[in-house]
């Protein structure tokens, strides 16, 4: 480590692993990264122990890409540890950026999750009522597992974050662009992006990059994607298919709407939008073609589970962050 190679770590917390795969999906580019960097921790692809990270000096790592939300005490411990050891901490992917899919769990309580997963699940062995406990004593040994928190957090609710790379997962070309920009900044070849910047994405809404034709939007009912054969050229929202494009940052290349699938909002809100779900709510409800309260209710009844769809990746990042049921 006496050479001038960059020191990097890639860590996964409460995530599916897709973010790690998106880094691997940069194909041979990863070999370019390897030429200029030592990978000190990357649980999915390389050896490396937490104690090795604990033994590092503060700031010894140049960059850490942290993917996944913070769901339990292990996720938090590693977030704090990697923050301390890293010059630059990047929230990589929708979960670290906004809470992501795991963040949907914030609409129910921890007790409901335990109940559903361990006590009242059709796939359980009948009569098995075992639930995981943070500490348990077995044959005289004290065993511990990470503490399952009351709710899901996005990374910057736990530690200071330098940059954000959105996407579920980030598109490989954007991951490559983001990593290239950080390497250029760290090796003095380019100015660093301003702290807090969203890198690997653009400063406009997805609709700006969506190839579908847009005209006046007025709809009299919503369709779930399987209920209608969509016109391949026309804006999906105009056809009554709920698309998160108006409330989503561009950067992915509009791959979902190009393939006939409505945008799910994984790149997060466009610049200066505080609450992605609230903005989508505003956009979607304004195109309903009715002035009659009863008819409006009937049209909205064709739109099931709007809250989860509008905040699919952003519940912990929303204003209310979680359910406030008593």
């Amino acid at each position, binding site marked *: 480590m006496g050479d001038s190679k960059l020191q990097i770590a890639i860590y996964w917390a409460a995530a599916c692993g897709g973010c790690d795969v998106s880094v691997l999906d940069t194909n041979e580019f990863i070999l370019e990264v390897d030429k200029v960097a030592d990978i000190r921790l990357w649980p999915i692809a390389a050896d490396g122990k937490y104690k090795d990270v604990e033994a590092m000096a503060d700031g010894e790592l140049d960059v850490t890409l942290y993917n996944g939300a913070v769901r339990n*005490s292990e996720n*938090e411990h590693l977030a704090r540890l990697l923050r301390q050891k890293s010059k630059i901490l990047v929230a990589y992917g929708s979960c670290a950026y906004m809470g992501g899919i795991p963040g949907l769990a914030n*609409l129910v309580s921890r007790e409901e999750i335990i109940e559903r997963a361990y006590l009242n699940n059709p796939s359980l062995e009948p009569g098995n009522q075992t639930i995981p406990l943070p500490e348990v004593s077995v044959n005289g040994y004290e065993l511990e597992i990470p503490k399952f*928190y*009351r*709710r899901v*957090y996005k990374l910057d609710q*736990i530690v200071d974050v330098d940059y954000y790379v959105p996407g579920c997962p980030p598109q490989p070309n954007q991951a490559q662009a983001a990593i290239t920009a950080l390497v250029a900044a760290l090796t003095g070849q380019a100015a660093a992006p301003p702290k807090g910047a969203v890198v690997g994405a653009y400063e406009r809404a997805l609709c700006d990059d969506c190839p579908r034709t847009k005209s006046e939007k007025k709809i009299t009912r919503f369709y779930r994607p399987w209920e209608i054969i969509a016109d391949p050229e026309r804006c999906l929202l105009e056809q009554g298919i709920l698309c998160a494009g108006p409330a989503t940052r561009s950067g992915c290349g509009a791959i979902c709407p190009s393939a006939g699938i409505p945008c799910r909002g994984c790149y997060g809100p466009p610049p200066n*939008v*505080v*609450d992605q*779900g*609230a*903005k989508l*709510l*505003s956009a*979607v*409800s*304004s195109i*309903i073609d*009715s*002035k009659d*309260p009863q008819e*409006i*209710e009937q049209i*909205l009844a064709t*739109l099931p589970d*709007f*809250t*989860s769809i*509008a905040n699919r990746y952003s519940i912990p990042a*929303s*204003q*209310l*962050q*979680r*359910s*406030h*049921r*008593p």
Partner: protein
Amino acid sequence: MSFEPKIVGFLCNWCSYTGADLAGTSRIHYAPNVRIIRVMCSARIDPTFVLKALHDGADGVLICGCHPGDCHYTEGNYKTMRRFPLLKRMLADFGIEDERVRLEWVSASEGQRFADLVDDMTERIRALGPSRVQADLATDMAER
């Protein structure tokens, strides 16, 4: 100490704010619990504002606009009418009680109606108790 609900009122400039003004100039007594924010049209009230008010500690949010058909901008209050039921669904999913957020049409001549409305909403929220949003977020932080 007894609980005094904090209610944020978003009132449209042309009808509802003038109605609230009429309540004042008519010296009608009503609950002092509403903090009024004047906006040009009820359609200006981004759902984000309502969520932010609740996040920042409001116990209730009252939205008032011109009666349907009376909008100064012709169509603005219809946008509010479409937005509101979806907003209520989202609030219910986040565990915010129905009584805390309310949409009412109040014209410039309905000073008494505005006063009665604020009294009614204040008493309903008083019975419900304080919003749990701030307390919940503080509990989350304490857990870790």
